[in-house]
C-alpha cells in the first residue's frame, strides 16, 4: 500500500487586509488610518495525499486553492494546525525538502526574460547541485518529452506562451522533484498546447511516480489528469473524493431531445409528467433522472411516433460550475 506523502490536519490561514472606502474621503481616511480586517482564507482543513496521486483542487476564484498550495510548498506560514509534506514541515524550508518539490504557476515565470531558456536551466541545475554532464542529460530528456529542443537557444521573450510554459516546466523539473504543485499551469494556452501539457504531466506521473497537486479552471485538465478532487468553497473543503462519484452526485439527470412528426405528439408528450427543459417547433427536450431513465424512455418509444432522438449528459463545465456556487 502506498504511504501518505502529504498530511494536513486542521490547517487555518488568516490574512490581515486593509479595506478602503471609495472616493477622496475614503482615500484620505485610508492614508491616515487604515482599517484592517482579519480574513480567514483557509478554515480548518484536513486531508491526506498518497504517493503518486494526482489530485485536483476545485473552487471559484478566491476560494483558497492557491493559498493551500502555497502553505503546502512552504511559502506561507499556516496560522494554526499540523502539516507534513514528504516528512518535513514545509514552512521551515529545509534544503532537503525544497529539493523534493517544485511549484509551477501559470501566471508567473522564473525564466530569465532576455536570454535563452537553456541558460536558466543551467542556473537551476547549479542551484540544485546537479553536475553539468547530468544537467545536459536531463535537459535532453525533458526537452524531447516536451518537444522544445529547437526553442532552447532562443531568447525567452521570443517564445510563444505555449513554448514558454513548456520551458518553465523544464526549469521546474530539472531536479526531478517527487511532488509537483501546479497552479493553473494551462492558463492562457491554446487548446493544443493545453492538451500537450496534460499529456506530458500524465506521462511524467507514470514514469517517475511523482505526486501532482493542481488547480485549474479548465475542466479538461481536471478530468484528464485527476481521479481524485478536493473542492474548496470559502476556505472550507466541501468535497474530497473520486471525481467520478462527484459527477454522478452532481449530475443525476440526462437530457433527451425528441423530434416528433407532428405538433400533436409534442402536446401529448407535454402531458407526461416529466421535467421539460426546452420546446422548439417539433422538438422537445426532457431532463430525466438516471434511475428512471430506461423505463421512461421505453414508455415514450412504445407510445409515440418519434422521428429522431438524442441523449446528452450535461457538459462537465456546467456540472463543475455547480460546485463553485454550491457550498455542499
Amino acid at each position, binding site marked *: 500500500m502506498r504511504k501518505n506523502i502529504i498530511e494536513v490536519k486542521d490547517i487555518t490561514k488568516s490574512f490581515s487586509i486593509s479595506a478602503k472606502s471609495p472616493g477622496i474621503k475614503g482615500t484620505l481616511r485610508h492614508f491616515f488610518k487604515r482599517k484592517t480586517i482579519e480574513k480567514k482564507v483557509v478554515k480548518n482543513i484536513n486531508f491526506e495525499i498518497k504517493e503518486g496521486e494526482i489530485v485536483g483542487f476545485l473552487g471559484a476564484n478566491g476560494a483558497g486553492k492557491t493559498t493551500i498550495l502555497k502553505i503546502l*510548498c*512552504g511559502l506561507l506560514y499556516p496560522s494554526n494546525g499540523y502539516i507534513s509534506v514528504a516528512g518535513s514541515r514545509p514552512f521551515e*524550508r529545509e534544503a532537503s525538502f525544497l529539493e523534493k518539490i517544485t511549484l509551477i504557476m501559470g501566471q508567473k515565470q522564473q525564466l530569465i526574460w*532576455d536570454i535563452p531558456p537553456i541558460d536558466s536551466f543551467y*542556473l537551476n541545475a*547549479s542551484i540544485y547541485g546537479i553536475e553539468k554532464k547530468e544537467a545536459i542529460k536531463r535537459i535532453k530528456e525533458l526537452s524531447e518529452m516536451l518537444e522544445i529542443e529547437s526553442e532552447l537557444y532562443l531568447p525567452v521573450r521570443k517564445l510563444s506562451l505555449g513554448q514558454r510554459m513548456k520551458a518553465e516546466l523544464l526549469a521546474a523539473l530539472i531536479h526531478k522533484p517527487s511532488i509537483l504543485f501546479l497552479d493553473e499551469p494551462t492558463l492562457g494556452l491554446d487548446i493544443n498546447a493545453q492538451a500537450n501539457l496534460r499529456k506530458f504531466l500524465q506521462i511524467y506521473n507514470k514514469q517517475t511516480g511523482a505526486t501532482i497537486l493542481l488547480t485549474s479552471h479548465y475542466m479538461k485538465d481536471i478530468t484528464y489528469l485527476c481521479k481524485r478532487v478536493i473542492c474548496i468553497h470559502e476556505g472550507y473543503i466541501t468535497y474530497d473524493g473520486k471525481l467520478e462519484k462527484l459527477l454522478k452526485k452532481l449530475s443525476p439527470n440526462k437530457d433527451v431531445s425528441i423530434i416528433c412528426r407532428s405538433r400533436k405528439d409534442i402536446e401529448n408528450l407535454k402531458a407526461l409528467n416529466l421535467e421539460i427543459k426546452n420546446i422548439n417547433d417539433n422538438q422537445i427536450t426532457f431532463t430525466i433522472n438516471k434511475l428512471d431513465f430506461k423505463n421512461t424512455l421505453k414508455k415514450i418509444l412504445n407510445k409515440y411516433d418519434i422521428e429522431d432522438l438524442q441523449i446528452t449528459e450535461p457538459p462537465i463545465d456546467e456540472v463543475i460550475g455547480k460546485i463553485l456556487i454550491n457550498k455542499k
Partner: protein
Amino acid sequence: MNIKKYLKVYSYFNYSSFSIELEYKINLFIDLLTSILGLIGSVFLLSIFFTNTDKIGGWNFNQALIIQGIYTILNGVTNTWFNPNLKEIVKYIREGTLDYVLLKPIDSQFWISFKRISPTGLIEILLGFFVISYCFYINNITLNIWSFILLTITLICSILILYSLWFLISTTTIWFVKTWNATEVLRSFLYMGRFPMDSFSFSLRIFFSTVIPITFITTIPSEVLLGLSPAWKIILEVLVSITFFIFSRKFWKFALRFYTSASS
C-alpha cells in the same frame, strides 16, 4: 554552506547578467559614458568648493580627492551590485516572483543580492582606483603592505555597511510594498560621502556617522591612506559593519515571516 556550489551559482549569475547586458549594446555604451561624465562632474564640483579656500574641514584639495576616489569606488560597487539587485526586491514582492526564490535550496539573501551584475559599474570602480593612484602621486604617498591591508579592510567594511543599509531599507518592502523612494534617499545621502566628515557641522557629523554612517564609509579609508586614522576608528568601523550586516540578515529572516506572496 557549500562554498563550491555558491561560487558556481554566482558564476552563472554573472554569465546571465553579462548576456543580458550584451543584448542591449547601445545601453551599455550610454552607461559607460554616464559613469565617465559623472566622475568629471564630481571632480569639477569639488574644485569649485576649493576655489576660494585651501582647506575644508582640515582637508586640502589633493587630500579631498582621495575621498572622491573612495566615493567613486563605492558608487561603482553600488551601481554594479546593489542597485541592479536590491531595486529588484520591490519587483519580486509586488509580482510575487519571490516565491521562486524562496523555493530554491539556496540562501534567499544571497540570491537577491547577487543575481544581477551591471558591468558598467565595474568601469566606475576602475576609475575610482585610477583616481586613488593619482592621489598617491600628488600627495606623495608610498603604499606599504600595512596600509594596503588596512585600506582593504576598511574598504570591505565600508562596502558591507553600505550594502547592509541598502538591504535593510529594501527589506521593508515586505511590509510597505513600494519603497523605491527610500533607497533614492539613501543614494542622495551617499553623495554626502564625497566630502570629508570634518567639513560638516557637529550634529550632521553625528548623524552621518551613526544613524546613516555615510561619511564614515568614505572618510575612514581615505584617512587610512593618508596615515591619519587612529586605530580606534578602524576598529569602530569593523564593529559597525559586522553589526549592520548581522542585523540586515536577521531582519530579512524576520521580515520573511510576514511575506504574504502576491495573489494569483
